[in-house]
Each structure stands twice: as C-alpha cells, then as structure tokens.
C-alpha cells in the first residue's frame, strides 16, 4: 500500500460519508481498537492510545538496546552428557534415545558420502548438516507426524526421523526415476507429501510467510496440529521473516519458528548479520513467545519444541525457538569456509561441543551404548548408505517427457505439441540420444 492510498482512503471516507459520519466512524473505530477513555482515565499512569498500552513517565529516557537481559540459553545436559537438573530430563525411553542417536549418526555418514560424491562430480550439489544434527532430531522427535514441516534446506535429519528412507534421499540427489520429485529439483531440495514435508524452495525465507499461511489453514480446520518452519540466522534478515512474525502474531497462528542459529550465513558471521539479542530477542517485539536453547543439546531442543508445539496448538499462538549451534561444515559444496574462518576454530567446536558426542556420553552413562555397538553401527551405516548410493546411481533418469508435465494441472495444448515434436525428433534421431539411461 502506498501513501496515496492511505490519503485517498481517508479523503474518500470524508467525501462518501460527510464530516459527521466520519466522526462517528472514527469513534466507532476507536471503540474497536481501544477502551473508551474518559478525562480522569487519561490522567492515570497508564496511557490509552490505540497504538500502545503503556505507562506515562515524567522523566526523559532514551531506552538503549541491551537494557533487558538477553534470553538465556536453555540446557538439559552439560558437555559430558550429564543431566543438570533432573526435573528437566525428558526421560525418553531407550528406544527413542537410540533412534535419536542412530538418526544423528546416519545423517552424518550420509553427509560424508554424498559430499564426497559431489566432489567427484557424481551429483551436482550438496549441503551437509555437520554440527547441527541435534537441532534436526530434537525438534523432529518432539512433533507429531501430522505436524507440517517447512524446511529451509539444511533439515535432512527431520525427514530421516520421520522415515524418509536412504533410497529416497539418494534418488532425490541423483534426480533419478525413483525420485518422487521426478528429478525436477536440485539435490537436497527434498519434499514428501506422506511425511508432511513441504518441497524445499530455494529463495531464502519464502517458506516463512507460507508456513504461517498453512498454519492459518490448520487453525481453521481445528486439526490439533501445528506447523514448524526452519530458517537460519541469515534468513532471519529477509523481509519475509519479519512479515511472517507479524502475521503469525496478528492472525494467531499455530506455528513454530525454529531458527538454527549456526553462526554463519554462508560467510557472513552473526555479528555482521544483526544487532540486539539475535532472533529470540525479536519475540517480545512482535508479541511472540520465544525461547533460546542450546542447539547442541538434543534434549533441550526436544523439550523446547515440545513446549512450543503444546502452546501453539492449545492457544493458536506462534512461538520462536532459537537453537544456538555451530555450522561445522561448509555452507554447501559451492563454499570453502577456510576463506573466512580458521580450521582451528572449526576443530575446537567439533571436538568440544559436538551434539552427537554429547548424546553418546549420556547413553553410555545409562549403559545403553558402548564402543563395540558404536563400531558395529558405524560400519553398518556406511554399508547401508553405500548400497543405497550405488543403486541410485544405476537407476535410470525419469522419462524426459516428464519435463512437460505438472506446469499446470492439465497439460496445455502448446506443451502437448512441443512434447509431440520432441517425441518425433527423438524417435528420428535416437542414435544421438542416450535413451537407455532414461526411463521410457
């Protein structure tokens, strides 16, 4: 909307209804937005402007940033996997915790192999999740299967938790005929209808207002579910992030804004990305409940997400969960992070505050895991990933005709004609095309 429209809206009101009606309109609107204010009430300490509920003050003060304490970082375990306050222990049973651990390590193995495969030119692109495994698994485990997920792009662990198979990951990265996405998207742009995971969209943060829109639909259907939308500390600078916060708050939508604050937006460190108390700190400004959590502590992430989901569903309210972590890997295969941070810094994080190690220590304390299990599992994940990887590589590409489908629900005539033209061309010159590598 532009200034012209604000002005013309006002003047139109005057013209259409005359000054008297305007006054009445304003009064009725005022009643709509604020409590009626009598003279004596105006002299009270509390101001009654429609735009803010606040107290009057008699001394001039420009409020500097940092005048309130920053959000604390909620933690359940220390670095040794020891629960700090037993009342905060989610007391998950052994099966669940083992699945958490196995998914985190499986993600790690898959990342290693697919990252290398891109380096060898076998797939075009890849993004690893090193160091952020607990943010994926802790949050995914806290949600119900019908809660809708909007990922940014680095949330493969969420899919893994929900049951996306290794074959499905590999088929997508290879864009082969096994890929439900028909090979239409870059690697790691996963999507799954059955697992309620919306297909990844590359432009940063567009998923945020869209998630709010889906949450609005959920609120209307009274399904008892919520939406979780993942984004990074860099994505939080996009205009989309601000509008998403504002709409979720004003429309009262059951949505969890899950920020993976991993310290870097490609090369831009957080100290160049924002001022103030990061992303959780924006919660109060937007009227949104918020929490900051240690993203390398899978139980803290689990507890925070669970509490957020409960609040979102019960009260139709948005919640911001800011998970603090460190991106150990490069941004993507198009990035070499040694250009902007030291290997020593990365190694320090990887060796001292590693989410997988922390969970293993917890499990070892409980007697649920030991070195021989670890060795056996590591070997098994490697084998499983390599097997699936090898099969995906051999699978033919989707039929080239798929290129013309799904632009519209019904294929328009000009696309049908083009498909026919291409079909004839390929038929007449089949010796020049690698047809055997495409599904017919």
């Amino acid at each position: 909307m532009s200034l012209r429209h604000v002005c013309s809206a006002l003047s139109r009101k005057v013209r259409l209804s005359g000054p008297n009606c305007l006054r009445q309109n304003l009064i009725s609107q005022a009643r709509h937005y604020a409590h009626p204010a009598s003279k004596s009430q105006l002299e009270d300490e509390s101001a009654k402007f429609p735009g803010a509920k606040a107290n009057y003050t008699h001394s001039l003060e420009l409020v500097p940033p940092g005048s309130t304490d920053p959000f604390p970082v909620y933690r359940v375990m220390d670095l040794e996997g020891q629960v700090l306050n037993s009342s905060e222990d989610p007391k998950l049973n052994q099966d669940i915790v083992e699945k958490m651990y196995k998914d985190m390590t499986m993600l790690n193995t898959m990342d290693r192999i697919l990252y290398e495969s891109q380096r060898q030119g076998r797939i075009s692109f890849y993004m690893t999740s090193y160091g952020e495994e607990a943010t994926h698994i802790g949050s995914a485990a806290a949600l119900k299967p019908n809660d809708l997920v909007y990922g940014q792009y680095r949330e493969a662990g969420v899919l893994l938790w929900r049951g996306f198979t290794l074959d499905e990951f590999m088929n997508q990265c290879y864009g082969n005929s096994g890929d439900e996405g028909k090979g239409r998207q870059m690697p790691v742009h996963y999507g799954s209808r059955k697992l309620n995971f919306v297909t990844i969209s590359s432009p940063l943060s567009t998923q945020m207002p869209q998630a709010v829109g889906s949450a609005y639909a959920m609120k209307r259907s009274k399904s008892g579910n919520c939406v979780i939308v993942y984004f990074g500390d860099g994505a939080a600078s996009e205009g989309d992030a601000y509008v998403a916060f504002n709409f979720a708050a004003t429309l009262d939508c059951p949505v969890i804004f899950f920020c993976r604050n991993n310290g870097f937006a490609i090369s831009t460190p957080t100290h160049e990305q924002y001022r103030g108390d990061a992303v959780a700190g924006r919660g109060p400004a937007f009227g949104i409940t918020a929490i900051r959590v240690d993203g390398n502590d899978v139980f803290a992430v689990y507890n925070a997400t669970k509490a957020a989901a409960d609040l979102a569903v019960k009260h139709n309210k948005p919640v911001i969960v800011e998970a603090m972590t460190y991106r150990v890997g490069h941004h993507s295969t198009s990035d070499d992070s040694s250009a902007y941070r030291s290997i020593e810094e990365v190694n320090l994080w990887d060796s001292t505050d590693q989410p997988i190690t922390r969970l293993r220590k917890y499990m070892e304390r409980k007697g649920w895991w030991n070195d021989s299990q670890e060795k056996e599992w590591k070997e098994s994940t490697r084998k499983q990933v390599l097997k699936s990887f090898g099969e995906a590589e051999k699978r033919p590409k989707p039929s080239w005709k798929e290129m013309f489908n799904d632009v519209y629900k019904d294929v328009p005539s000009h696309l049908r004609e083009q498909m026919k033209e291409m079909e004839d061309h390929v038929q007449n010159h089949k010796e020049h095309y690698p047809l055997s590598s495409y599904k017919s």
Partner: protein
Amino acid sequence: MVMTPSTKMFLRTAANVLNRRAFSTSRVTCAQQMTVRDALNQALDEEMERDEGVFIMGEEVAQYDGAYKVSRGLWKKYGDKRVIDTPITEIGFAGICTGAAFAGLKPVCEFMTFNFSMQAIDHIINSAAKTYYMSAGRISVPIVFRGPNGAAAGVGAQHSQCFGAWFAHCPGLKVISPYNSEDCKGLLKAAIRDPDPVVFLENELLYGNQYPMSDEALSKDFVLPIGKAKIERPGNHITLVAHSKAVELALEAANELAGQGIECEVINLRSLRPLDTQTIEQSVVKTNHLVTVEQGWPTCGIGSEISARIMESEAFYHLDSPIVRVTGMDLPMPYTKSLEVYALPRAEDVVTAVKKVLGARSK
C-alpha cells in the same frame, strides 16, 4: 443543472417506466446493467458461498469493504475467518495466501493495486507458479491474485502501469485481463475454481462502468472458460486485438471507422495466458490485417507476443500488410494530465493505425 429531490425522483420514475415499456426485446437492451465492481463482488460472493475453502485476504478488504469496494458486504456476511484484513505488507499476505493454498484452502489475494504486487513478486513467480512443477504435482496451488492493474488517472508513474506482459511471461501462471462485467464475473469465478494459480488483472477505471449482463451471466452457474477470447464485434476488413480497457478503445475506433466504411473485427482477449492464438489466426485469415491495442508498454508486450505468434503461423501468409502495435508510450507515466493523455493510446491512434495498415495494401 440544479436538481431538486423531486425532479430527481421524477426522472428516476420516468426512467423506470421507460425501461419497463421498452419496445425492443433484443438481448442487449433488455439485459440488466451491472457495474464491473458489482460483477466482481457477485462472483466473490457466489464462490465464497459455494466453497467454504475460499477466503479473501488483503489490505482494507474487511470492514472498509476494500479500497475499491470490490469486497463490499462480504466481511459482514462471512466474518473475520473468511475476509481478512492484514498488516500492510504485500510480501506478507501474498506469502500467507500461497502457504494457505499449499495447505488446501483457496485464497483470493487482493492487491490494493497490482503496482504493489512487485513487493510480493517472489511468492507469485517463484513459489505459486512453480511449486506444482517442483513438487512433481504433489502440491497444487489453487490461488487467485487479483486487483486493479493498468493505468489509472492522475496518479503518476508508480500507480499507472500494466503488468499483463510481466505475468503472462511466466509458465505456471494463468493470467486473465477482463474487460466488462460479464467477463469479470464469469472469469473470476473460473479463476477461483481453477486448480492452478491465476493472476486476475482488473482495471481501476472500469470498476464504475455499467455493462449489460445477460440472464445467463446473472446465474450462479455462469463460468467463462479461461483461455478463450471473445469476438466483441465482427468485421471483415481488419482485426483489432485488445485486452482490458483497450477493448473499449478498439470498439470506439471500430465505431468511428464503420462510419467510413471500414468494418473492424474486435477481439477481446480476456485471457493473456493461455493466449487464444486460434481465434486471432482465424480472424486474420478472414480480414488479412491485424492491429493490436494495449495500454501497456510496447517492448516484450502482449502485442509483440501476438505478432510473433502470427509470424510463426499459417495466418502469416494471409496478411496483406505488416502488423502494427498500438501501445502505451515507452516511458514511465507522466503525472501531468495533458501528458498522461498522450502517454496512453487513444481511439484516434487506433484509427490512424488501421488506416496505415489498410493504406499499405493499396500501395
């Protein structure tokens, strides 16, 4: 002229009596008149009643009844849940609507004008238009982006421009640019029912215009097909193709030329994507001459696209002279009223173009 209330009343009564006693029973004269605004309003109302999933979102659409009163009365009828005022951010509510469509609702996203849709263009082009394809047909996006488009009056460069060519460029979108009340009602209903994302380009200056509505068009079942042009006026000498307000220009020009013995066939495109090339080709085969008329800019415009398609088709061999495009001037809209008039095509420009094209034949 000063009118007292009683003269007004008398005139109104007289008009009613005359209407009832009209001698003609031909369709147009006995048809009910309706403004474009009311036709759009009726389409929205009927589709909201028909489908609980349809909802309207935008700035000022609820209590204020819409900046141009297109959603008048709908908030009172359907309430907060289905007619939703939003904070002032196009990127926000276009994104919310897109997400709601992903989740199965049928949003009608109102831009106060399409000039502001540029703030939201990423959601329209990169998400709404492409998600069905990128998700391999698993997520459909049944959404309508609608609002006034094209030149308004006296509002300068940022409020007077046509986005028809912009959106028509993008696969995945359907783009409708209606002219009169029947177009607006039948096509908006079609757009809301369509499973694909539709951009619906209204015209601010036509909102208040009245056009006849046939009995058929008044019915709740009246839906026009998307992608089909309409021959507004048949003729044998030359084809004029136009969309939105430019159809009016083409008709005015045709009227004037008829007095000079030149019969124009006027095609109202109705839809810019899909573009009904077939109807244009058939007409060109008959008339052997073509002039396109639009208010938008010439470069990569709708007229350019039509010209290219005719060049690539059999109809090309039926042309007796080159195609001419009548368009808006290739510059941002001047604010000055005297210049604004010349920045937009006028009926006389169409007349000149027609004479130029037909004159070329005789040389």
